[in-house]
């Protein structure tokens, strides 16, 4: 039996679990059983693919099942790239299942979640394994629909139906783009296997069209600006462990689709394709994090931050394309490694953060940060792991986020060697955008952690919050440990990624585990190196030293004094920093052009007792520029066409007749 059959059996088991979940969904023990099963299956598949990635990195195993299109069957293939993404999917799936074991008990309608959760996991696994366009699209749609069902799990809550509707429309649009892209790749001959597409040499025009369509198709699923609109609506609407899967894993499956087609199937890229992907990535990163900064709903903030991270990943992919087009394989390998490393990292910390948001949600029933605060005293463990997630996603050493972003910047620093002036100018500019987004991300997560966990409670619900259950904590601690491990042992991950870059670029980064003291040296010792372990040890030692000194030499007497309230006479929790006020300086700086933000102060006339008002007006520019005209046009057209539904029978006949005659006329007059 070939190796690819093992994850396929895993998929079959997941689908079986989904069907079983329909049958037993109403029982009390269903939650334990389903999440236990998905945890076990994901863990087994995870072990298998990790073994494959480490043990037989160059191995490719394929299998054809007698399903799907009759003349090609359903083809599945496991190579280094799909093994890596299977690892991401199943690690996220295992963590979400573990979390779900505890979190699932708070679910009001488990029958709406349990069947779709394993199906969603199965869909994501299948997309990564598919080796022909038909299976790929079918799995892709299956994944979309399963996640849509999960988004609609709480369909009675306000705005969730709208989120589901927009998600469905955008998912269909994305699949249409993918369908067209595969159609172009298959060419007139119509061979829908990936092997045939890989062998074909598409023309310049076809390659450009496929790139554009993939940016639309995979980009809309991943959340590239301006196709991101569904993401901050749909991801938070699902139950939190599903939000974690959608944000942390499903967006990565979209990245997989992009890499598979652009790097693997399309052949040699043109240099300008790098420019397109780079600039979209940079734009996405900055706009995503700016949206996140203005957000006060914790889960939506995390969803917007996903858009930022997707931007970082796509910028790195664009770099890899540019280097690959210019025959600079070592730099291309570096950029691709950075992108894949960030894929892995983001799946760790974004899942962790969504789990944390879910824990806060179960403990307090609130997602609005303006009603939280002071949770660090009531949920110390959750706030600790949430802090780890925040530090990781803010790209601070010694955690993992720093390593991948650092690698991306190392790749950007290679740009002076590029021959085209367009790229020479573009890459540092995008580098600037990425640096800006990294800084803004740090500010954003200071806000997310500070407003949620620090300060004093802003509502009664928070006062009575309790720490969450063991399973949820175990899942979060496991992910936090992975964040730290990937941060202090990055060489391990980089070497693990080498078969992927070898197969896609034909080159790899230097072997990192051979470096002394677990340093990583992306290009050469003389240019740059980083040692996460050293930084970690330094931080640990200096922090313990400082703590020791303070505890040893400072006074032990505890003094409580009145907090200084900036001269405000009545110190209520409402006088604290809020999410909006924290973000105000940044909104002032960037909001005017990015969101057409306006502030208006209405002062009452002298002598009046009315309070002064500060009105803030923020526009979603992307929605208003791209989507409102479309929705408006569709609404107008449907209104105009509506009366066609109420014609007489004879008129319908006449319409059909006239249409037929018109077609015949066209045929007759066609030169």
């Amino acid at each position, binding site marked *: 039996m070939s190796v690819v059959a093992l994850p396929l059996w895993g998929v079959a088991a997941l689908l079986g679990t989904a069907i079983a979940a329909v049958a037993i969904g109403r029982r009390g023990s269903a939650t334990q059983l389903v999440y236990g099963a998905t945890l076990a299956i994901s863990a087994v598949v995870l072990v298998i693919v990790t073994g494959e990635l480490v043990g037989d990195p160059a191995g490719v195993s394929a299998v054809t099942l007698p399903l799907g299109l009759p003349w090609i069957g359903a083809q599945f293939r496991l190579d280094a790239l799909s093994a890596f993404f299977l690892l991401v999917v199943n690690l996220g799936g295992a963590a979400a299942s573990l979390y779900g074991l505890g979190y699932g008990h708070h679910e009001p309608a488990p029958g709406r979640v349990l069947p779709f959760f394993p199906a969603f996991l199965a869909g994501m696994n299948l997309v990564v394994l598919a080796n022909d366009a038909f299976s790929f699209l079918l799995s892709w749609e299956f994944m979309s629909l399963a996640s849509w069902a999960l988004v609609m799990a709480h369909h009675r809550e306000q705005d969730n139906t709208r989120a589901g509707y927009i998600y469905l429309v955008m998912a269909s649009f994305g699949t249409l783009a993918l369908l067209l892209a595969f159609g172009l790749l298959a060419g007139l001959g119509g061979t829908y296997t990936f092997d045939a597409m890989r062998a074909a040499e598409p023309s310049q025009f076809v390659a450009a069209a496929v790139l554009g369509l993939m940016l639309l198709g995979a980009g809309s699923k991943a959340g590239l600006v301006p196709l991101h609109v569904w993401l901050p609506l749909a991801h938070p609407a699902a139950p939190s462990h599903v939000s974690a899967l959608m944000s942390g894993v499903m967006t990565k499956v979209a990245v997989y689709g992009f890499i598979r087609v652009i790097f693997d199937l399309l052949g040699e890229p043109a240099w300008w394709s790098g420019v397109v992907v780079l600039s979209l990535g940079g734009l996405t990163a900055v706009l995503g994090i700016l949206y996140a900064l203005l957000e006060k709903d914790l889960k939506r903030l995390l969803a917007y931050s996903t858009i930022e991270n997707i931007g970082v990943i796509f910028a790195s992919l664009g770099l890899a394309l540019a280097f690959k087009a210019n025959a600079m394989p070592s730099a291309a390998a570096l950029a691709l490694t950075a992108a894949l490393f960030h894929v892995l990292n983001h799946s760790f910390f974004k899942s962790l953060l969504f789990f944390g948001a879910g824990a806060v949600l179960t403990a307090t029933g609130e997602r609005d940060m303006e009603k939280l605060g002071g949770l660090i005293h009531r949920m110390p463990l959750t706030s600790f792991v949430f802090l780890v997630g925040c530090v990781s996603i803010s790209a601070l050493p010694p955690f993992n986020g720093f390593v991948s972003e650092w690698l991306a910047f190392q790749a950007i620093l290679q740009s002076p060697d590029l021959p085209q002036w367009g790229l020479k100018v573009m890459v540092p500019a995008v580098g600037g955008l990425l640096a800006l987004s990294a800084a803004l991300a740090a500010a954003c997560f200071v806000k997310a952690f500070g407003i949620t966990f620090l300060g004093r409670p802003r509502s009664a619900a928070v006062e009575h919050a309790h720490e969450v259950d063991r399973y949820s904590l175990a899942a979060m601690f496991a992910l936090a440990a992975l964040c730290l491990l990937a941060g202090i042992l990055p060489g391990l991950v980089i070497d693990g990624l080498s078969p992927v870059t070898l197969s896609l670029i034909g080159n790899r980064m230097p072997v990192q585990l051979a470096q002394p003291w677990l340093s990583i040296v992306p290009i050469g010792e003389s240019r740059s190196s980083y040692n996460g372990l050293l930084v970690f040890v330094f931080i640990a030692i200096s922090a313990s030293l400082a703590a020791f000194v303070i505890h040893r030499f400072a006074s032990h007497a505890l003094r409580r004094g009145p907090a200084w309230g900036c001269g405000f006479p009545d110190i209520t929790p409402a006088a604290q920093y809020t999410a909006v006020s924290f973000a105000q300086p940044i909104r002032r700086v960037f909001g005017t052009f990015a969101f057409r933000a306006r502030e208006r102060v209405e002062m009452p006339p002298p002598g009046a007792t009315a309070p002064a008002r500060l009105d803030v007006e923020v526009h979603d520019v992307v929605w208003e520029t791209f989507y409102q005209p479309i929705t408006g046009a569709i609404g107008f057209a449907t209104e105009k066409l509506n009366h066609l539904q109420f014609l007489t029978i004879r008129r319908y006949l006449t319409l059909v*007749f006239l249409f*037929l*005659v018109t077609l015949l*006329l066209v*045929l*007759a007059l066609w030169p």
Partner: protein
Amino acid sequence: MNGLTFDIAHLLAGGLVLVSFMMLYQDRLFALINVFALHAIVLALSVAWQAYIQDAHHLYVTAAIALIFKALVIPVGLHRIIHRLGIHRDIETAVGIGPTMLAGIGLVTLSMVLMLRVTPEADPLAREDLAFALSIILLGLLVMVTRRNAVSQVVGFMSLENGLVLAATGAKGMPLVVEISVAFSILIAFIVIGVFLFRIRERFDSVDVGALDDYRGERR
């Protein structure tokens, strides 16, 4: 192909088009049905001639089906329906005769131009046959569109189907099974439509499809 057989086939198919034209200006139902019966007889002759020149014996069966069902059973059935509905005195003029005839001429021209253009390599007999068949189909549709009475719409539909049979028999090697299934589907359609006619009649006291529209509360 010898000239005479071709000419006779041409004559019969052209006769079919001519009878279709006759259908366009009948404003009484009985007359319309009689013309339809004539249409079916010409069709049967044409199919039988095709059977003879192609030496395809199964086409005689088709011709017999056309003769028995379309020239006898269905017209008789329609006559009885009209008697029972009591609408044999109705006169209907949805669209004037002049414009309808002009439209019919236009349609025949269109189908000639089109068919002769797209089938330059085909057998000349089949080519003519296809062109005539398309004209008959379009004229049948025209009958359906210009009539307001449900019975005459049924007749238009049946004459349209005659065009299909003509096209099918003109092409060599069409299996009998196809023709029989087409014939039976038409028969079933006739039965279903007949049932519906009585249903409509029961409910609205009329088989003018305008009554349906009135029922739906819409403008005509």
